[in-house]
């Protein structure tokens, strides 16, 4: 079979099953069963071929799922859920709100500052968006904020969760692409913080152009002593856990998996110290982390053979040979890959996008001589943008769920666009100065 027919055959099977609504994990499993039977089943009747092919599939899935590299995924998720369900998130957010004082478009800035901290700690874009939406939207409406000033910052900061460590998605990407998990996590720090700054600048510009979009209002002033107390007791302890996790990885004191487990225990201790750790909140946290872990790892399990099939059928090598035969500039190839990710993001979840594209894009990026950690950050940014790309970006629907009833999907789409622009600007800067992503990981031991 020619490589392009093999590629079309494999990709179209997965896409077909997904399109008709089969759960993603089963879509991959079904496509891989057929593909493995055809490409790996050897000779004999169909049952013999299925026995060999599907046997190979289960054998491939074992080492893929049972790897210590994946351990930060459940640990980061658990850390975020504990942070969320014990009420530590709300406590920190309220503190940021009080600390912000009286500035134009105050609530939008509160969203970006508090949201960045929360998205970072929780590692969950959806959880972050849901919390920010339910906390901030009613308050912003009460203060007469226009919809785009309320919705846009929430969508933007929600997406930061996947870029700034601890990010479960970054761990998955690193594992799938055979990258150093710790380095990819660390590489997201500077771009993530830059993006948060871009959001703040954007809000300032929007508030200056149209002051009516975010009317000013009187806030209770608090003393410097109170500010200090809020910082020490309600902000610093939470943020120090994230910084601690990053430092543990950066200094090589522990593996990303161990750092993540320490992060979990840290948040648990913190919740206990604040008297917020109850059996109910603990069970809810474990249940929440379990749901996403099982969902994500079953997809990884299902897709374990996919990259092997692409390689075995000659599709990967054929595509790379074909793509490089045009002798296009590497930057053009990068933009093509980026564009494909954005298009896929309109219809697909992040994990499916990764599983479909990583086996093709990363070997191609290596052939083109890209720094793979830098490329990983670009892919994460594309995934982040795709979270808010119409019509099916996941965060758009989460936002719709927590917005006022008169908010249309169009309102949400329009609000998301300037913040997507910030992320695209960051991609541009990363292309010009790759050091933005590669500088910090260069210190990792």
């Amino acid at each position: 079979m020619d490589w392009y027919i093999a590629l079309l055959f494999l990709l179209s099977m997965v896409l077909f099953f997904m399109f008709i609504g089969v759960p993603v994990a089963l879509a991959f499993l079904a496509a891989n069963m057929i593909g493995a039977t055809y490409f790996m089943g050897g000779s004999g009747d169909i049952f013999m071929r299925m026995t060999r092919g599907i046997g190979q599939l289960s054998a491939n899935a074992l080492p893929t799922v049972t790897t210590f590299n994946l351990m930060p995924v459940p640990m980061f998720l658990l850390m975020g859920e504990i942070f969320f369900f014990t009420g530590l998130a709300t406590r920190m957010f309220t503190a940021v709100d009080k600390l912000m004082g009286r500035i134009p478009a105050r609530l939008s800035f509160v969203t970006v500052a508090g949201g960045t901290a929360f998205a970072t700690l929780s590692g969950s874009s959806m959880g972050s968006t849901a919390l920010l939406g339910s906390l901030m939207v009613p308050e912003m409406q009460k203060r007469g904020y226009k919809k785009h000033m309320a919705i846009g910052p929430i969508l933007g900061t929600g997406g930061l969760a996947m870029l700034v460590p601890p990010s479960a998605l970054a761990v998955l990407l690193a594992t799938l692409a055979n990258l150093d998990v710790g380095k990819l996590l660390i590489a997201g720090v500077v771009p993530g913080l830059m993006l948060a700054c871009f959001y703040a600048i954007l809000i300032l510009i929007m508030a200056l152009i149209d002051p009516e979009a975010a009317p000013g209002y009187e806030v209770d002033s608090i003393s410097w002593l109170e500010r200090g107390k809020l910082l020490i007791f309600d902000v610093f302890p939470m943020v120090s856990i994230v910084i601690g996790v990053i430092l543990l990885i950066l200094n090589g004191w522990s593996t990303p998996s161990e750092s993540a487990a320490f992060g979990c225990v840290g948040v648990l201790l913190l919740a206990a110290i604040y008297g917020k750790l109850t059996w109910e909140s603990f069970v809810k946290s474990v249940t929440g982390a379990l749901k996403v872990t099982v969902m994500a790892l079953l997809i990884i399990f299902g897709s374990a053979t996919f990259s092997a099939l692409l390689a075995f059928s000659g599709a990967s090598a054929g595509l790379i040979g074909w793509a490089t035969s045009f002798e296009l500039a590497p930057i053009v190839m990068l933009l093509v890959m980026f564009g494909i990710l954005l298009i896929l993001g309109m219809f697909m979840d992040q994990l499916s996008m990764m599983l479909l594209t990583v086996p093709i894009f990363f070997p191609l990026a290596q052939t083109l001589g890209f720094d793979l950690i830098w490329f990983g950050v670009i892919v994460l940014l594309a995934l982040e943008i795709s979270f808010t790309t119409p019509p099916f970006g996941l965060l758009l629907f989460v936002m719709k769920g927590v917005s006022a009833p008169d908010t249309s999907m169009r309102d949400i789409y329009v609000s998301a666009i300037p913040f997507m622009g910030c992320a695209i600007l960051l991609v541009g800067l990363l292309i010009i100065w790759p050091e933005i992503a590669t500088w910090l990981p260069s210190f990792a031991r």
Partner: protein
Amino acid sequence: MRWVDRLCDGLAIFAGVYLVVIMLAIVFQATARSFGFSGSSHIFTFTEYGLLYIVMAGSPWLVRLKGHVFIEMFTAALPRRLAPKFSRLVSLLCVIICAVLVWYTLQATLKSYRFGDADMRSIDMPKWLLLGSMPICFLLMGIQFTRFVFGHDTLHTGEAGVHEG
């Protein structure tokens, strides 16, 4: 269905407990190492295999909660009268996929039992103990999907988007 639901709930509780134990085990291992003790290399093996058991034990429970992510495009575009029927067909397809997986992963398990295959890490784990979790998981998943074929509820909501439980 009730006993299947209870079994799935029990397996999910097992998965949740395993997750917490993994967290504690990793912290214990890393702390022991930083104090100069070597700890136990079996802890790594225990946590690594744990990921497989957690996925296999939690998946059937997650089917019932509609927690396995799926995309609604086609089902959302169908006329309201047709959509539930098509959704049941898709669920039936899921049952068939699970049934095929049950059969062939069972074959793989039995084969590795007969040949005495082992997964060699810090301990030589009999492979059938790992592979054996797969037919059980897919059997229970298949049974859970049948509720969306024959029951009142359907897997798909009719609302376009990516659904994540």
